[in-house]
């Protein structure tokens, strides 16, 4: 057996002052933004019963951190924000009149799918809008996701919008059973046209149906993409899905967000989970989406209340990585001033009072606890990038110096 006392487990890491301060500042910006939009923040427990995640079959058990309580019941660390909030909406808020607007900023715990590199503990900020199935609600959530990214400094942003109902409608029209539809959706999601073509032949799709199918992973644009598909489909469900996306684009234009948005009907992950529009947000310098969201009207019903739901989550850790790689410097954490004092009687009291005054004025001040003399204090400040050095000799003589970097 190894001795792991010097190590942290796989997928977790310490957050050092500079990074931590940046993260807190970003969290604060998002918290304000969510609150300004009328979303109330909640905190759900870091540990849930395993059943909370297992009952809906939305999460595969391999990805959950599991432990057990003293009665032998299986518990799971918080895997995402949506499912606990859905539990809240159906239980604690059972009598609350919809709509509910809730938000969270919390750490999530996941065994990453393929291991290696990706963090297993990471912070997500997100919102859930429960009890509304309107297109306006869809658009509100996407707009808030865009505002969130912009607010924390991600300006190179691309949002792709898809619609799971479009694909489900097509499968219905072509009479393809659910299990096979899942396989086809996987090929589309991976843009694997080779496998897709083979599948189309296997199901004996007509030439025009096959053409439509092959277009799904290939086409992404805006209204033009919607027009291209609108001409090709007759199924009501698929048509309604296209109309939903069209209206979302219209509303996002009212928000002034058109330039960030495009349509990609080939985004087809977790078809069991999503029941309407799906969206993802991308930026430069990170290989994974920073934002993920959509409509999942069946999730709350797992907990016994029939409630429509739409929401998104933004990965703060990925955003910070992106910001750093895009050249946004994180400011090093340094106190504004360091204050020392001589051993003359009464100087300590004077120094402590002075530090308090400066702190009240909003400065961060370190008070020397080691009895340093003026020279030692200066080099201490220099080592730590502290701008201002104050040394109290006696009640008449206070020496202030600027630390020249």
């Amino acid at each position, binding site marked *: 057996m190894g001795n792991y006392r010097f190590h942290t487990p796989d997928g977790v890491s310490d957050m050092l002052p500079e990074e931590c301060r940046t993260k807190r500042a970003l969290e604060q910006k998002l918290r304000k933004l969510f609150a300004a939009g009328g979303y109330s923040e909640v905190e759900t427990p870091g540990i849930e019963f395993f059943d909370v995640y297992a009952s809906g079959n939305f999460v595969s058990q391999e990805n959950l951190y599991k432990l057990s309580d003293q009665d032998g019941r299986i518990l799971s660390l918080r895997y995402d924000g949506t499912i606990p909030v859905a539990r809240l909406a159906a239980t604690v808020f059972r009598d609350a009149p919809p709509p509910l607007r809730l938000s969270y900023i919390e750490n999530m715990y996941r065994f990453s799918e*393929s291991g290696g*590199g990706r963090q297993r503990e990471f912070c997500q900020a997100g919102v859930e809008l429960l009890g509304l199935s309107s297109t306006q609600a869809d658009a509100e959530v996407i707009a808030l996701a865009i505002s969130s990214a912009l607010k924390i400094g991600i300006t190179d942003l691309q949002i*792709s919008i898809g619609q799971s109902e479009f694909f489900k409608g097509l499968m219905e029209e072509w009479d393809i059973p659910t299990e096979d539809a899942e396989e086809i959706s996987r090929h589309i999601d*991976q843009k*694997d046209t*080779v496998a897709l073509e083979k599948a189309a032949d296997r199901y004996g799709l007509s030439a025009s149906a096959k053409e439509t199918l092959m277009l799904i992973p290939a086409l992404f644009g805006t209204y033009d993409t919607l027009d291209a598909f609108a001409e090709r489909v007759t199924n009501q469900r698929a048509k309604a899905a296209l109309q939903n996306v069209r209206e979302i684009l219209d509303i996002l234009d009212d928000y002034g967000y058109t330039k960030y948005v495009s349509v990609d009907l080939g985004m087809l992950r977790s078809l069991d989970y999503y029941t309407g529009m799906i969206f993802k947000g991308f930026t430069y310098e990170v*290989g*994974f*989406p920073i934002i993920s969201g959509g409509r999942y009207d069946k999730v709350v019903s797992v907990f016994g209340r029939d409630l429509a739901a739409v929401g998104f989550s933004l990965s703060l850790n990925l955003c910070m990585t992106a910001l750093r790689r895009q050249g946004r410097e994180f400011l090093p954490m340094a106190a504004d001033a360091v204050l020392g004092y001589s051993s003359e009687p009464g100087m300590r009291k004077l120094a402590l009072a002075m530090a308090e005054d400066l702190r009240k004025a909003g400065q961060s001040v370190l008070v020397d606890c080691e009895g340093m003399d003026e020279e030692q204090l200066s080099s201490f400040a220099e080592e730590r990038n502290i701008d201002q050095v104050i040394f109290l000799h006696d009640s008449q003589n206070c020496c202030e110096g600027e630390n020249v970097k």
Partner: protein
Amino acid sequence: MTDMITIALSKGRLAEQAIDLLEAAGYDCSAAREKSRRLILEDEKAGLRFIMAKPADVPTYVEYGCADIGVVGKDTLLEEGRQLYEVIDLGFGACRMCVCGPAALKGKLDQIPNKRVASKYPHITRSYFEGTKRESVEIIKLNGSVELAPLIGLAEVIVDIVESGRTLRENGLDVLEVIADISARVIVNRVSMKMKAQSIMPMLDAIRAQLAKQKEQGEEVPSV
């Protein structure tokens, strides 16, 4: 705006074939032809950067966005199971992923309970036997010369790629079942596809056009 495109290639023959194709498609790949031990080869003017990686690592570089595009065998993709776009079948590097064993087992494979299967591809093996065939097997991971395993009793059968089948035959083995057709694929990172669409889409189109042209001319797969 044109973005710098990073391409991860599988060191060896696959890389050379990929470079031939890209050049034929009109991209200046002289940087990648440089004979050196450097692992990153960059041509700022052409806007291309090449990473030379072990085949099994190519999907990893692309999934994490360290490379925008990669060229790698379908066998590696199946084994690694990563989240990326698999956009073009290049056709070269063609072979098959097969279950192989003594010819005597032909057609009788299902009669052996709790088979031991040796393979360099434990994930493909697991998903084929457990997912497709719905049977439990014991998988023995080996790193090469997998044909040895059934000969000396380590396993009943193996899962491996078969090109000409010569190694199999010379060792008294045969293909028992075909799992999948394998060839080289172009893969793209999911974010790059969106963020660098202006550079990546034309490149994919040029590759597709070149492949179509070669097919039309009845040209053989570029040989090295």
